[in-house]
């Protein structure tokens, strides 16, 4: 059976690519610290020596639209082109093409349906920055095949937070029951408190630092029950109007497991939002790893 080599949860900040590649007067003052944290985070994936990446993210009204909106969708295709015109325009993100791992995608679809997740699928999916940002930060050579898993955190009505956790648990079981000798990393990105297009956007820090502090603690300690006890579709409006993206972190907590303490935890307080990076090694920290718990 396949081995779950690493579970990684991260924010996805579309400005990282431009900040990290800018030079001279264009380079923001926080870029060097940000790059250092990302490089340490990247090392946690490199050490896991993955063969395949399951990438959990959310389409931001790029290919998926309100005339036909899935709640959870698996991409099954030999290739995935990536990034859209408005991401190039606003964030300077490059066009990319990633290989797909169709056998694992087919397994997740069949097994997921049989576990009562009515998963949608796409055989021609252009992926956006929710998946390409972690490729850029964690695997910039973009050399590994992926299986995209899209969730709807964006266009209400949304699934309940507990459903994200349940899907995360199922993804773990399904990866570990995949008949393959491959090493799989599951990588998911979401947000802590975030406001987009509302009065609290683009402040000196994220819109709700207290929520961010609690969220990092829930994730780092694997406190799924504590998190579910406080987080609801209604409550997520309060920390910021785009905070429902936190449910993708909850999905990743489901993959990591109840009580699973993250092996790598890091944060960076930026204007507008807090960055947060977590890595778990379900089968133990790889030997020679320099990761800090």
């Amino acid at each position, binding site marked *: 059976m396949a081995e779950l080599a690493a579970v990684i949860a991260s924010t996805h900040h579309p400005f990282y690519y431009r900040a990290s590649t800018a030079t001279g007067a264009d380079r923001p003052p926080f870029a060097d610290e940000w790059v250092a944290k990302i490089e340490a985070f990247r090392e946690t994936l490199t050490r896991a020596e993955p063969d395949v990446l399951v990438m959990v993210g959310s389409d931001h*009204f790029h290919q998926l639209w*309100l005339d036909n909106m899935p709640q959870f969708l698996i991409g099954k295709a030999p290739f995935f082109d990536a990034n859209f015109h408005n991401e190039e*325009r606003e964030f300077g993100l490059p066009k990319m093409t990633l290989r797909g791992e169709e056998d694992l995608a087919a397994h997740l679809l069949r097994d997921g349906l049989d576990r009562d997740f009515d998963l949608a699928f796409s055989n021609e999916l252009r992926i956006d920055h929710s998946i390409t940002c972690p490729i850029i930060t964690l695997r910039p050579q973009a050399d590994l095949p992926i299986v995209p898993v899209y969730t709807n955190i964006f266009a*209400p009505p949304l699934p309940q937070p507990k459903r994200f956790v349940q899907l995360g648990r199922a993804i773990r079981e399904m990866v570990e029951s995949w008949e393959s000798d491959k090493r799989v990393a599951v990588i998911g990105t979401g947000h802590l408190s975030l406001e987009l*297009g509302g*009065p609290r956007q683009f402040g000196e820090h994220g819109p709700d630092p207290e929520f961010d502090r609690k969220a990092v603690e829930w994730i780092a300690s694997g406190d799924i029950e504590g998190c579910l006890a406080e987080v609801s579709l209604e409550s997520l409006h309060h920390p910021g109007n785009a905070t429902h993206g936190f449910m993708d972190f909850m999905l990743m907590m489901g993959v990591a497991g109840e009580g699973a303490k993250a092996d790598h935890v890091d944060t960076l307080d930026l204007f507008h939002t807090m960055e947060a990076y977590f890595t778990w090694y379900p089968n133990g920290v790889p030997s020679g790893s320099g990761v800090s718990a």
Partner: protein
Amino acid sequence: MSKYLLDKFLFTVDRDPELTERYREDPAGTVTWWEAEMANTVLNCIPAEKTTWLAFTDDERRALAEHDHVALFQMGAHPFLTLTLFIALFERDHGPMEYQRAYGKAMEHISMPYPDIAT
């Protein structure tokens, strides 16, 4: 009121560079043309298979024609769509992050709970 149609306008104009420029230069004319020609196009169907019933209200038409992002927010248009398109329209006229901050400040009188964005 059709939050869906507002969102459809923002979505289709944002993703098409020519339409984005047209909306910047001639907002009222673009809204009139879009409602007549594009509003009832199903995006993954052939042109002949049109919807028969989508139209803006007067308030929606006015908010779009006046580039009024605050009114769009209060009507429940999806904030991500509005923000992304309006950054494309107006960021170029301002210093770094200046437009984004002014965009938020123009809404500082709006308190929780925000308008429902469900369609």
